[in-house]
């Protein structure tokens, strides 16, 4: 069963002479329960694909389907019960004036849950934060704790597909290990599907079963993680990327 299907996706910004094609004719599909990685250097368009799937990049053409249903320009609210996203910078993804309780409470309220109090408590437990963090503001949290809150927010609507945009690149390695472990556990416990963007091949190698290598908006190669480990990339660009990160 296919969770996410991307076919000949183009994404661009601006128009006329200022038009920049960020993603060109990208195609790949992700099975339900799979973890799929998108790797590339900055400006390769890997994050843009995630933003297009989430509905944050509005200029696109081609076909995108989540759980068999083709995506339209405007996403219904039910879409966000299936697809959620975790952003790169935990310092920018939480509203500076909203406490953890407000962030999670509002999300639950928007998705029409009734037992908000109990769910906030449960979500905080699930991401390993616990009750004492409930009424804190972002400036009272460390980077890793903020990212846990962001993950809790993404889990609140009980989605099936989680889009992870470099979720650990702004964190220290020891904190990165904790967050990656958390993501591994959550996927196993909840049967989530991940699409994870990263510039770090070893992180993608750890988290994903398959990955696509992107360069200048195009997918140059899709391979399994065993091929990556065996250093069996075929495309010269993937090889150079692999060499640089070893």
């Amino acid at each position, binding site marked *: 069963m296919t969770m996410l299907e991307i076919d000949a996706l183009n994404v661009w910004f601006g128009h006329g002479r200022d038009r920049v094609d960020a993603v060109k004719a990208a195609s790949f599909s992700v099975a339900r329960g799979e973890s799929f990685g998108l790797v590339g250097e*900055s400006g390769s368009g890997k994050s843009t694909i995630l933003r297009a799937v989430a509905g944050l990049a509005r200029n696109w053409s081609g076909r995108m389907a989540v759980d068999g249903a083709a995506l339209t320009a405007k996403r219904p609210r039910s879409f966000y019960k299936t697809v959620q996203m975790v952003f790169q910078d935990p310092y920018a993804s939480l509203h500076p004036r909203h406490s953890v309780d407000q962030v999670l409470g509002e999300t639950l309220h928007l998705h029409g849950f009734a037992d908000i109090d109990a769910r906030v408590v449960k979500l905080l437990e699930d991401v390993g934060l616990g009750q004492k963090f409930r009424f804190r503001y972002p400036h009272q949290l460390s980077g890793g704790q903020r990212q846990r809150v962001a993950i809790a927010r993404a889990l609140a609507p009980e989605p099936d597909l989680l889009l992870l945009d470099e979720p650990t690149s702004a964190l220290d390695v020891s904190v990165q290990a904790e967050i990656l472990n958390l993501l591994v556990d959550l996927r196993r416990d909840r049967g989530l599907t991940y699409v994870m963007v990263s510039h770090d091949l070893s992180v993608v190698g750890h988290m994903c079963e398959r990955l696509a290598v992107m360069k200048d908006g195009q997918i140059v190669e899709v391979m399994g993680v065993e091929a990556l480990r065996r250093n069996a990339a075929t495309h010269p660009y993937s090889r150079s990327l692999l060499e640089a990160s070893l």
Partner: protein
Amino acid sequence: MMEPLLDVEDLWVRFPTRQGVFDAVRGVSFTLGRERLGIVGESGSGKSMTGRAILRLIRPPGMVEAKQISLGGVNLMDKTEKEMRAVRGQRISMVMQDPKFSLNPVMTIGDQIIEAYRQHNRASKADAYAKALEMLEAVSIRDPDRVMRAYPHEMSGGMGQRIMIAMMLIPNPEILIADEPTSALDVSVQRQVLDIMDKLVKDRGMGLIFISHDLNLVADFCDRVLIMYAGRIVEICEADKLSEAKHPYTRGLLNSLPRLDAPRDHLEVLQRDPAWSEAPSVSGRL
């Protein structure tokens, strides 16, 4: 070993806060010869503060205290702010993480380099221009004429960082402090910038302090590594022997990295021991 370029003894950086005095750096000592010295640690370990404190660039209300910070036998702690200005840039240069914030956005790169050069040397405009071109060539910039006319926003991150390095090297400093100079760059560009720094440091016999959070990068690039935790040095190793590090903190950091060649379900999580921050700082003086 010959006379060290820089001798730092018992360096403290303190910040008064509402909850009392916060010590960002606590009694750090080390020497720097003509070598590449790496300082590694996580955010908040005091590694950047150490670099800035050497140049006395800690903004008030922060305070720098030290038994000595000796540059060629002269204690920088005794210098006035005015005398320090002659040291900064001239004898010790610093390269920051993001070149975008270090270059003036409304001046061409050429004008900025020329200005920097003429600040330190008496030279005609034409001489300064020739010197600037030479500098850009030294950091492997192809087509330096075009780059001289360009504005910072037209440069990629890697180019910007190379230009910063070129500017820092103009006064021929004895010591270069590089604070996460490649963290904002892609891996392939990272390598090029490091190679350039490496070559310049070797050719000119400079001392380099390389501050980074990336253990593997530092192990690869430096000669000696100081590992900092909670404002103290917990361990010092030869860079090529980093994988044999003994301190549980260093070991924990190394083990928490995902590795392509050793897949596993869960990464090792660092268990922090309060005793680490209690133990006195290890001295890095030779």
